[in-house]
């Protein structure tokens, strides 16, 4: 396939995944703010920190109010990572590779764009319906994945789609976990309190992981949650799961045999995956979870740029 097409299908999926994650973060945080009923600045700003767009935010807005942050992350077209921008860019990528995707896939993404593009700004009167708004976004993204899964051949196009989705998802899961670090920092004294528990629960919800977590763990503790989201082998948003599927797709693309590698990206993913296969959550906590997640993000970025180099730039 054309390198440009591979790159577009990859980014189309990254943007859709990002839009979905943002809508979930915002929704969960909105629900959490209703439960906690506390100073909204503390509640909302960690969200912006975890996306890494805090500098841009402060250049544009005076206060980290709920309204500002929701607007910034969902509709603000000057924020390159806002849901709206993700959608515009996903659709643009879809247009450039339209001949490689199915009509149902294109229709989902196009109709999604047409419904959201008329929305310009949230105000207080939108708040009662905001959960529905985020849910609709999430559902459109899931519909898109479903369509992709069911209507295009699982060939190279599909594998590049999967790579985009998995790498974005792994990155966002590290950021969700890291959010706890930003929230916890100023209030270390609350460890173990109801507040703490609600916050950890909201992390699980941010990853749509609450029910699955409950099936495998009996007690909600920071460690068990971190273990589930980082090291689980079969939960689709767990980082290890994402890396393992990434590895499978890369193997299929390069056609190399087990225990050997065809190109650098495969090697980088393989090495990281082996490390995770032999890691334990105790070690991760002892060495410092924030540092561990930081490292993971750096290495995930390294994998993404290697992929770019190998497949998109020749």
């Amino acid at each position, binding site marked *: 396939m*054309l390198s440009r097409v591979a790159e577009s299908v990859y980014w189309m999926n990254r943007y859709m995944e990002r839009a979905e994650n943002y809508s979930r973060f915002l929704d969960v945080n909105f629900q959490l703010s209703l439960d906690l009923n506390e100073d909204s600045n503390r509640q909302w700003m960690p969200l912006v920190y975890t996306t890494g767009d805090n500098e841009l935010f402060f250049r544009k807005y005076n206060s980290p109010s709920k309204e500002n942050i929701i607007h910034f992350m969902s509709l603000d077209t000057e924020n390159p990572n806002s849901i709206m921008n993700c959608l515009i860019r996903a659709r643009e990528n879809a247009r450039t590779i339209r001949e490689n995707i199915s009509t149902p896939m294109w*229709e989902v993404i196009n109709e999604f764009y047409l419904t959201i593009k008329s929305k310009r700004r949230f105000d207080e009167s939108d708040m009662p319906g905001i959960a529905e708004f985020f849910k609709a976004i999430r559902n459109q993204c899931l519909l898109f994945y479903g369509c992709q899964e069911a209507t295009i051949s699982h060939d190279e196009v599909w594998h590049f789609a999967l790579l985009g989705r998995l790498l974005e998802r792994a990155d966002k899961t590290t950021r969700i976990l890291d959010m706890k670090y930003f929230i916890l920092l100023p209030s270390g004294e609350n460890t173990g309190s109801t507040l703490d528990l609600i916050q950890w629960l909201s992390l699980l919800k941010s990853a749509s992981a609450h029910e699955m977590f409950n099936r495998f763990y009996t007690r909600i503790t920071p460690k068990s949650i971190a273990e589930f989201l980082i090291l689980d082998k079969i939960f689709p948003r767990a980082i290890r799961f994402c890396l393992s599927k990434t590895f499978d797709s890369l193997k299929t693309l390069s056609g190399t045999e087990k225990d050997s590698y065809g190109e650098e990206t495969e090697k980088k993913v393989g090495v990281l995956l082996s490390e995770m296969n032999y890691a334990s959550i105790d070690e991760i906590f002892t060495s410092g979870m924030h540092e561990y997640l930081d490292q993971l993000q750096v290495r995930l970025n390294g994998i993404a740029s290697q992929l770019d180099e190998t497949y998109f730039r020749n």
Partner: protein
Amino acid sequence: MLLTNYQTDSFYDEMFSEEGGIRQSYHILKSRIEGMDDKELLSRKASAEKALLSLGITFNVYGDEEEEERIMPFDIIPRIVTAYEWKKMEEGLKQRIRALNLFIQDIYGDEKIIKDGIIPAEIVYSSSGYLKECKGLVPPKGIWIHITGTDLVRDGDGQMLVLEDNLRCPSGVSYVLENREVMKKTFPELFASLSVRPIYDYPIRLRGMLEHLSDKSNPNIAVLTPGIYNSAYYEHSFLASRMGVSLVEGTDLTVRDDKLYMRTTKGLKQVDILYRRIDDNFLDPKVFRKDSMLGVPGLFEVFKKGNVALANAPGTGVADDKVIYSYVPDFIKYYLGEDPIIPNVPTYLCSREKDLNYVCENIGNLVVKAANGAGGYGMIIGPVASQKEKEEFVAKVKADPRNYIAQPVLSLSRIPTLIEDKLEGRHVDLRPFILYGEEIYVMPGGLTRVALRRGSLVVNSSQGGGSKDTWVMG
């Protein structure tokens, strides 16, 4: 109901005869429309338009940021052409394409037609579509114009005339195909009773025609697009998809050792046939426009060496020139020894002194067009222009007479069209698509373009025109 108060206003109407009766071929359609209440017709129109928007069958409008993508307004009342009338059009178009191809080969070859005094050399050389770089070239299989969209109009007497030939990158065929799909959903019952000739095989025929240009058994074909901001991008993508070939941009391609390659995730892959949808000037910055970002450096050399087939071949634009158009009936006589089956619209050449004087004095009754204009730009319609506009245009024509032609204002035929909630007559033209491969194929039907503004004669989509499905009867 909608048709009860319909007025033909003494124009030639595609559906109604002068006596007010319905033309034979429209009987079934008319009774179907009359059997529907107005609401139903409107709701069918609305759902047809929604389907087009959902599918993203849009074109881009330059310089309009807020609404950069629009669907081409689509009218659900089809235009019907009888088998008898179509046969004549089909033959006329084939004849014309044959003669045009011979002309292009001749002027880049021995120039017999110039030597025999049929057309002056300076007219040919001064055409902006004439590429001196093509001199001496013979493209694969001797075919230059693989895909043509010829615009036909019907005048006040009901006579079909050729308005212009589009030989460079004619667009619109995707609308024809998509409109038909929408129409099948809108009026399924009519298709059952009318035996409308199918057109769905066009992309397969297009692919077959392209394959014919290479001697390889499994040639690699690609469609070259300027990218998503081009107004016809949807069509490029649609055709690539329906043919099952790659859609490429200039940056996806590279030339190595006089061959053309595309960049894939598994390295370079040779391209044998390129259906290019960018103009000659942008094809190769080494030979034509140096600032072109859309083409591929070295492509023209690859073409000259016979290592890639380009459709349409570079240089065909010479016969697309509106001045040269006026000579096409002469070409038909000269090369084929036949009389033209479909006549041209009478045309004044401003490069002829006598014609120039006539045009300047009678501009109020004429349509004056730039020889290489397209999309409704660079033209003036005398009867609706202001005095100032006319004076300015006369000055332009006098400054560069070679670049202008004039034609009488035709009274284009009209057809009932759904305007808001009633049917009104609107002027139409017809662009059939012709493929030249092993043989010449004319798609039965074509794009009927509609001037949606009341009284307007301008059907271009960039000027607010719409389209209709065209049904050729079995």
